[in-house]
């Protein structure tokens, strides 16, 4: 174990001076196997394999619909493919990102990452405290080299070189670039060794550890979060409580105390559409927010600009129209009064909705209205008479087009009903004398008679509604911090150069007698285009600093 060196940093840079011993074959026992398995798992080769597996395993999620995102599409797929569907479902094709195999891959990858990064951190910490390795005897094998002559003594030059190497960064002049070590090699020969770029490995380690932090933060958020969705009609509001939501989901360790009981009311809603393409241009919800113990405040919610309320964020996810209707039954009693959201189905806001009237007085049939709201109507002549379509999403000329059903709404069967669907099983459609379904066409302000003497319907006006999505994730800030740390670490590990520079100053002989022969060499981790220029720069600066201006050294 003593010669174990983490993989990935064993390159020319870390090559030991003496050859390492061949690993001894150990007796295979349980520990032997475990150790072997651990070595395999933390090897770069396996990490590579896991990375590619992760990439491949993520793909099915775009091929098949996912339950977490589009449960309705999964249901459709299952009905359309009665044989293949269940098989795919069993292997988790509709829950790829929470499936056992996907989780296994990324968890193994993270184990491998930790197993690789921890030893590297140890090696790096030792390296950071260490001194630059002394100048090698021969400079010939290094990728960057240089030489020169000087009239200064080696002692003076080594001092100059140290100063040159220690000179700070342009932006941080007090932080020395190189860690420098000088050495008297005897016989009047001096050498200097400089090393820089410890940040490169630091960045690498920070990047990988930040990924672990990111994973933990995301998981924490998953466990603690809650998310609710609801529809709020203009003029009404809601209090932040589980019961107020149409749908509510929460993490396993969600605590109800994280649900701050603020109230939010929709005052107004503005929308803007392109007159030619009908594409949406702007949505703004004007709301009144009342945090517990605080005064009501006017706020706006826009797409891209969620509202912060009670430690959660409120997003504007949809909008539409809610016709304000008053329905009187045959006896003249008001049986339904208020705005009913109609859900937009297309670009021109052809909106579908249902009004259920269960509370009729004494012995009459329950009835329901189902149909469409057209914000800006356009009459179309068809063989069967006039039909209406919507031609613009703004409510310039709205009408309601409704069919009437009577019978039993089925609200007391105990089966939960969708408020936007009419359960027609126990109901009959009301038809006219000719046997055609009755179609009510109502403009705002109009009151029409319901067929079969069911009563009257008054279309009081049109209100807006918004679909809000509220999300609380206490780990959000940690997710961001770790993501940014990972980014900074990555950039540092890829762009901070790790370099060693050595220089030797020896007394010249023969034709250079009396002068000092300067040699320099550089080594970098990975490919480093800046290495040779750096060696040249250091060499030139050293020679120039010790130079008499009228006696230029030969290079």
């Amino acid at each position, binding site marked *: 174990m003593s010669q174990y060196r983490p993989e990935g940093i064993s390159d020319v840079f870390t090559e030991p001076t003496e050859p390492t011993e061949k690993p001894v074959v150990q007796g295979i026992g349980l520990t032997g196997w475990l150790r072997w398995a651990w070595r395999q798992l933390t090897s*770069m080769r396996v990490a*590579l394999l896991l990375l590619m597996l992760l990439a491949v395993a993520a793909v099915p999620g775009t091929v098949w619909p996912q339950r977490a*995102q589009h449960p309705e599409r999964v249901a459709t797929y299952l009905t359309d493919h009665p044989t293949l569907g269940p098989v795919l479902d069993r292997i988790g094709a509709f829950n790829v990102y929470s499936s056992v195999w996907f989780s296994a891959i990324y968890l193994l990858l993270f184990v491998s990452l930790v197993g690789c990064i921890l030893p590297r951190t140890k090696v790096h910490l030792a390296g950071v405290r260490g001194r630059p390795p002394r100048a090698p005897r021969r400079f010939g094998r290094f990728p960057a080299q240089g030489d020169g002559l000087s009239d200064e003594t080696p002692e003076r030059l080594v001092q100059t070189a140290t100063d040159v190497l220690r000179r700070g960064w342009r932006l941080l002049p007090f932080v020395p670039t190189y860690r420098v070590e000088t050495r008297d090699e005897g016989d009047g020969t001096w050498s200097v060794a400089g090393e820089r770029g410890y940040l490169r490995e630091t960045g690498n380690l920070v990047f990988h550890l930040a990924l672990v932090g990111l994973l933990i933060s995301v998981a924490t958020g998953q466990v603690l979060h809650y998310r609710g969705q609801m529809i709020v009609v203009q003029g009404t509001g809601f209090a932040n409580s589980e019961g107020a939501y149409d749908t509510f989901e929460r993490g396993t360790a969600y605590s109800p105390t994280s649900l701050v009981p603020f109230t939010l009311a929709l005052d107004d809603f503005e929308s803007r559409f392109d007159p030619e393409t009908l594409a949406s241009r702007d949505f703004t919800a004007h709301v009144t927010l009342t945090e517990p113990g605080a005064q009501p405040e006017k706020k706006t919610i826009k797409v891209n600009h969620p509202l912060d309320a009670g430690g959660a964020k409120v997003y504007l996810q949809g909008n539409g129209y809610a016709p304000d209707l008053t329905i009187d039954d045959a006896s003249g009693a008001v049986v339904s009064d208020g705005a009913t959201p109609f859900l937009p189905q297309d670009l021109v806001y052809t909106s579908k909705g249902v009004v259920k009237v269960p509370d009729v007085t004494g012995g009459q049939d329950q009835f329901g209205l189902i149909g469409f709201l057209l914000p800006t109507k356009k009459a179309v002549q068809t063989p069967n008479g006039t039909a209406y379509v919507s031609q613009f999403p703004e409510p310039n000329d709205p009408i309601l087009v409704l069919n009437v059903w009577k019978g039993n709404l089925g609200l007391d069967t105990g089966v939960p009903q969708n408020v936007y669907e009419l359960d027609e099983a126990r109901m009959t459609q009301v038809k006219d004398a000719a046997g055609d379904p009755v179609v009510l066409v109502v403009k705002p302000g109009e009151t029409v008679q319901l067929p079969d003497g069911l009563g009257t319907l008054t279309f009081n006006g049109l209100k807006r509604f918004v679909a809000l999505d509220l999300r609380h994730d206490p780990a959000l800030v940690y997710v961001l911090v770790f993501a940014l740390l990972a980014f900074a670490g*990555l950039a540092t590990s890829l762009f901070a150069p790790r370099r060693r520079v050595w220089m030797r100053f020896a007394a010249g002989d023969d034709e250079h007698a009396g002068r000092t022969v300067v040699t320099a060499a550089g080594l970098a981790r*990975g490919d480093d285009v800046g290495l040779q220029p750096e060696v040249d720069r250091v060499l030139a600066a050293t020679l120039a600093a010790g130079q008499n201006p009228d006696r230029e050294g030969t290079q």
Partner: protein
Amino acid sequence: MNTGDLSTLMVWGAATAFTVALIAYAVDLARIAEGSQRVKQPALVAAGAGGPVSAAAGSADQRAASRSVRAEGIARSTHFVGIALLFAGIVLRGFAAGRWPTANMYEFTLVAVFWATLILGIVQRRRIIAFLSVVVMGLAVVALVVALNWFYIKADAVQPALQSYWLVLHVGVAISATGIFTVAFGTSVLQVLKSHREEAVLSGGVQRTLSGRRFSWLEQVPSGRELEAMSFRLNAVGFVLWTFTLIGGAVWAEHAWGRYWGWDPKEVGTFVAWVVYAAYLHARTTRGWSGRRASYFVFVGYAVVLMNFTVVNLVVTGKHSYSGL
């Protein structure tokens, strides 16, 4: 003619200039190939007779002669004219739409081509690498023509979800990363060919075709090691930008859609590409995988980047379906 039409005209102009540049680069490449085929025999004779010094000198002279100065001049100037026209087209497009011009596939393609051709210009500012230019210019011309014919939509304002400064940052960075990956891909292709040839010369022709006369133009390109280093530098920059695309995208998604990550098809594609390029960076430092084998990851990664742009935008429906088609 309004600003939008003028922009389209500029882009057509850029496509034309790039086509001329592509032809000129191809002529240069052909001339180089021809030259190296002619040179090959004499150089070997010289090596046998006169020793290494004269051989080196001889081949260097003839190498210089085998480049087509005129073709290179035409290529370089039309290349830069194309970049200028494309830039003007992009700016005018932004004015016509009244917003930052990176909101749909058409604009994405224009800006990606702009980046790729600009990076190509920078990479070969000292010395033209004809093969790399042919690969990147070829991709650029195809991308522009596809964009003009199939991705084009009228310059217009955008839906509320896109009205954010992240349209500049997130999409802008994604585009520049795509451009850089394109040049890196070309470099890696060249690196694989070249290193095969280098090995073939050493080992006596395992890779026959590549060591043959047909590929003798490979003698003119930088060494496999240099190309690998160049490809790595480009991919490293691209990868960092891609990481920013992911993080910035998550921040934006958190603002716009109420969650930072939701396995939207585009998110998956971007994630897969990121993982593949991460694998490439790891492969480079893995014994037995460095060099040519690592560059296969670049091919896979670039394929994922392209698929993520085309298939995910046009075929799969997701929250990133902004092509406007």
